[in-house]
């Protein structure tokens, strides 16, 4: 008989091993799924996980991994502060949209002026937009005790409507022949978030993501604020005694995640996407939640998890176009990853015991 026994404390070894185990299980079950779909499982797994890095066209895919991974990492880092402190910001997608709208608004308002100050201003406006949108659930929670999960999630849909209205109205390209969508910021030198080194994929968003990882690492491990965040998450009562102000903690955590999500939106709209369009957002804000948990809410873990998630997107597209794998199979694979992670997480807190039940 197999029983589960609670560990005295979370296992350090398993805390590191479970994400790897989850990836391995995903590959195995994914492989079986692909075999059932009539594809060679080894070739498919190799295409998804290795081709973007090592194939003939890897020089094209590697920069794409950075472009796809950076917003995920940037948003997930922000979310990890709140998630550690028990502040559940589910609406990063909305903050991402609002950041893009506010940042793009600055750029579009100044068009066609050229100045080195425009892009930094846009970044600030983007961060402000995301921060302000996150403050809505924050203030409602602090003042009226509303549930920030629901409020932040619902505000995603409000932000989507705002986005549509901007693309169709205020920000519509006057030279766009009546079609929705703003001017292309990527074609406006002062506002463009272009590659810093040609063909490297490296744009300011990737730099920002790396800085955020380092900043988060230092804050969480070396700074009193990091200690307070962890304490609030583990034991809100103890945190109170340590004179942590819970309201302040909620606002700071939501503020950080909102600002980073807003910046991610700005870097995306000024670079790879180029314009405010009705369907500008493609779910980075939601996928980042998976990335944050897959990375154990640890900055380095999030960096790796963001890379892995980007890999499944890009490898998944290669598998679709080269092997004819259906798109839904890729989404299933990504879902499996989170599912297995949550499932094997039990090993961190419990020990599996084999043998007869009843022995105490």
């Amino acid at each position, binding site marked *: 008989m197999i029983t589960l026994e609670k560990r005295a404390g979370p296992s350090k070894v398993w805390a590191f091993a479970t994400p790897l185990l989850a990836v391995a299980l995903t590959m195995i079950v994914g492989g079986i799924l692909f075999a059932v779909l009539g594809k060679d499982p080894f070739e498919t797994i190799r295409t998804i996980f290795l*081709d973007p890095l*090592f194939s*003939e*066209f890897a020089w094209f895919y590697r920069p794409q991994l950075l472009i796809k991974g950076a917003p995920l990492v940037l948003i997930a880092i922000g979310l990890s502060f709140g998630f550690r402190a028990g502040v559940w910001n589910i609406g990063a997608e909305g903050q991402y949209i609002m950041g893009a709208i506010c940042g793009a608004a600055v750029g579009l308002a100044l068009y066609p002026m050229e100045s080195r100050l425009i892009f930094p201003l846009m970044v600030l406006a983007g961060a402000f937009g995301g921060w302000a949108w996150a403050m809505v659930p924050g203030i409602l929670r602090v003042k009226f005790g509303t549930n920030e999960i629901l409020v932040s999630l619902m505000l995603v849909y409000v932000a989507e409507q705002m986005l549509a209205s901007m693309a169709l109205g205020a920000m519509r390209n006057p030279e766009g*022949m009546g079609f*929705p969508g703003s001017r292309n910021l990527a074609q406006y030198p002062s506002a463009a978030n272009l590659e810093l080194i040609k063909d490297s994929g490296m744009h300011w968003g990737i730099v920002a993501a790396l800085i955020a990882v380092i900043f988060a690492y230092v804050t969480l491990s070396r700074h009193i604020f990091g200690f307070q965040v962890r304490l609030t998450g583990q034991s809100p009562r103890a945190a109170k005694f340590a004179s942590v102000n819970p309201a302040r903690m909620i606002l700071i955590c939501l503020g950080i995640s909102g600002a980073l999500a807003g910046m991610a939106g700005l870097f995306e709209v000024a670079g790879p996407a180029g314009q405010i*369009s009705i*369907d500008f957002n*493609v779910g980075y804000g939601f996928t980042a939640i998976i990335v944050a948990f897959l990375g154990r809410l640890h900055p380095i873990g999030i960096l790796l998890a963001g890379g892995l998630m980007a890999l499944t997107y890009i490898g998944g597209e290669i598998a679709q*176009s080269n092997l004819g794998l259906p798109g839904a199979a890729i989404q299933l694979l990504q879902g499996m990853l989170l599912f297995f992670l949550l499932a094997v997480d039990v090993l961190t807190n419990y020990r599996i015991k084999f043998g007869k039940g009843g022995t105490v």
Partner: protein
Amino acid sequence: MTLKTLLAGATLALGFASGAFADAHQTKVGFVYVGPVGDGGWTYEHNQARLAVEAEFGDAVETVFVESVPEGPDAERVMSQMALGGADLIFTTSFGYMDPTINVAAKFPDVKFEHATGFKRADNVSTYSARFYEGRAVQGHIAGQMTTSNVIGYIGSFPIPEVVRGINAAYIHAKAVNPDVEFKIVWAYTWFDPAKEAEAASVLIEQGADVILQHTDSTAPQAAAQSAGNVVTFGQASDMAEFGPFPRVSSIIDNWAPYYIARTRAVMDGTWTSTDTWDGIGAGMVGIGEISSAVPAEIKASAEALRDSLADGSYHAFTGPVNKQDGSAWLADGETADDGTLAGMNFYVEGITGDVPQ
């Protein structure tokens, strides 16, 4: 560059080559889809045309596709991937792929691109679209006579000229046969989202609509109408015959196969040039699905006559007198709309209530 070559060589040696080397004689054609191939509508028909290309050329052509590609930077990557994978011709089948197509085409001057429903072209980018509004005219003609509540519901996707044009064409022809008709328009802001589409249909039915026209691609509105029992629908993009003879009484069918085959052949012959194609019922790009037995014979006959007059060019779906919504004159008596105005249409005609979202 040397590093690149080195890496490529190394990966080859390791046997990691993706196997994307196309046969030198084989023409590779790529398709980028906005929805899943099983959407039963827009993407389904593009995929049918892809299969028709395969059937036509057999082993001389290889086709590849990626489905459910978001309109934005992801689309750009998918197209680049196809071009790198050796595609000679790439069909990008949604309006939102316009800028990505232009960007990628600039990087791959030897690859030919075909962008559906857009207006930006380049030396290696053609555009093509169908005059769906001709089909909408026939729908409006039937819908105006089938309604008893005089309320026709319309599920719009995005307020872009193509969709606004469809609403206007349907309204003008519904009004012509039923002066009391009223249009209720719901914008779904999606091309394909069964849940949202079903919700939009239910809202319209609750508001008294007994005919639902849709410019979204799933069959969800058909199912919603079926369960309501007394609501008429039309198939969109695809025949959706499984919902006939009622609620689906007719349909607009996109038939891309002849165009795709012709363009593939042009690439094979080396005669491909950048063009702008906008074909309607006459050229066979727009088909009117079988008008079902639920439609009275005289309505069916007049609808078919309308279809035939649109096909042979004796009648234009936008023929004056037509005023704009604000009452200002647009088309004088007997005047027909020019393609330029139609291509950028962002206003309603007189009689439609509500505003084009902006």
